[in-house]
């Protein structure tokens, strides 16, 4: 590849190659403090033109790598950074075998991890980013990496993907932590935020899960907390995992252990402040 960047994020390393300089330059700025891999990268992401001439003519970025989805639509070059992020997600989702991957945002306090999981658009990323600026250690906004052997959650502090209305909440972040505003993406307007410095400095430190939350953002809901039973949590987390089936029995053992020892609640909230207050109460009861 003409342009290349090697990155370590938590326990995983990536080699990202691109036919164009822009996505790599944007990634290099966003991930400036992240270490380089010690050896060969775990996963490769390649951003390539769909056809050779599309490198120059109406450039269009197709996501390739060790694992590819045949029907993944290419993105315009202006969204090359998003393509790189999607490429890293894809390699993890399809190729990660060491950890059980849960589609969840995670933060830590006093060695204990809080998992925020639920449907896309429930507010996981925004909540985790907010908590990460307010005394919690940010572990990740996309995947929680559950180690089947130890039961610990490993950080995967990728750049936080802020979407639509959430962008304004982080306008005051240091400018070098913010990526370009990407308009008209498949998920609306997106801007990436580099996690706080302590999240990057301590990205090799795992945490023991202490609380699982299913947040739901809706301005029309009264704030509410509802306990979620172990069986329902188990089913929802199998659906939230990209590699539960591939891991076989170790995945089953890890997930059943997680849901039997970790309290779980659904919360409805209308604002970040309301969610933070609900989380504080649940957290002090759980730890």
């Amino acid at each position, binding site marked *: 590849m003409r342009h290349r960047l090697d990155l370590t994020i938590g326990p995983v390393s990536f080699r990202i190659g691109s036919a164009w300089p822009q996505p790599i330059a944007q990634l290099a700025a966003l991930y400036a403090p992240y270490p380089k891999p010690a050896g060969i990268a775990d996963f490769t992401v390649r951003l390539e033109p769909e056809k050779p001439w599309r490198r120059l003519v109406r450039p269009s970025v197709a996501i390739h790598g060790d694992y590819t989805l045949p029907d993944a639509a290419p993105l315009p070059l202006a969204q090359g950074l998003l393509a790189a992020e999607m490429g890293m997600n894809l390699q993890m989702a399809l190729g990660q075998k060491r950890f059980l991957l849960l589609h969840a945002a995670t933060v830590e306090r006093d060695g204990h991890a809080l998992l925020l999981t639920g449907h896309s658009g429930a507010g996981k990323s925004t909540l985790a980013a907010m908590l990460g600026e307010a005394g919690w250690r940010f572990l990740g906004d996309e995947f929680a990496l559950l180690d089947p052997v130890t039961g610990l959650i490993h950080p995967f502090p990728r750049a936080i993907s802020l979407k639509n209305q959430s962008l304004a909440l982080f306008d005051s972040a240091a400018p070098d932590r913010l990526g370009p505003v990407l308009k008209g993406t498949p998920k609306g307007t997106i801007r990436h935020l580099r996690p706080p410095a302590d999240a990057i400095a301590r990205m090799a430190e795992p945490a023991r899960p202490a609380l699982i939350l299913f947040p739901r953002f809706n301005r029309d809901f009264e704030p509410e907390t509802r306990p979620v039973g172990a*069986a329902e949590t*188990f089913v929802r987390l199998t659906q939230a995992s990209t590699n*539960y089936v591939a891991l*076989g*029995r170790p995945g*089953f*053992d890890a997930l*059943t252990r997680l849901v039997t020892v970790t309290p779980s609640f659904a919360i409805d909230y209308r604002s970040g402040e309301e969610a933070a207050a609900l989380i504080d109460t649940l957290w002090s009861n759980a730890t």
Partner: protein
Amino acid sequence: MAGPTFVADAPDALSHVALESLTAIYHAPSGMTHLLAPPAPQILAALANRPGTAEDVLARIAESFDLETEDAAAAMSARLGELEAAGLVRRA
């Protein structure tokens, strides 16, 4: 008239974890996970490596389970049919 005879896999082919009133089961031969309500886990235990008809199963689990229905044999046949469809028991 005796119905079909079923058998389930040996206990070591399955992992069981109780989740409240349900039981999560990992079935190693298929790699599939099932969430079962009583009496399904008890039926699997009664048929593990030990073929039996619906009546046999009823007799085997009678001590620990009371199927409160008028036609227990028909209910048991229905449960066995569901477990067969799920791949957890097979015809012996």
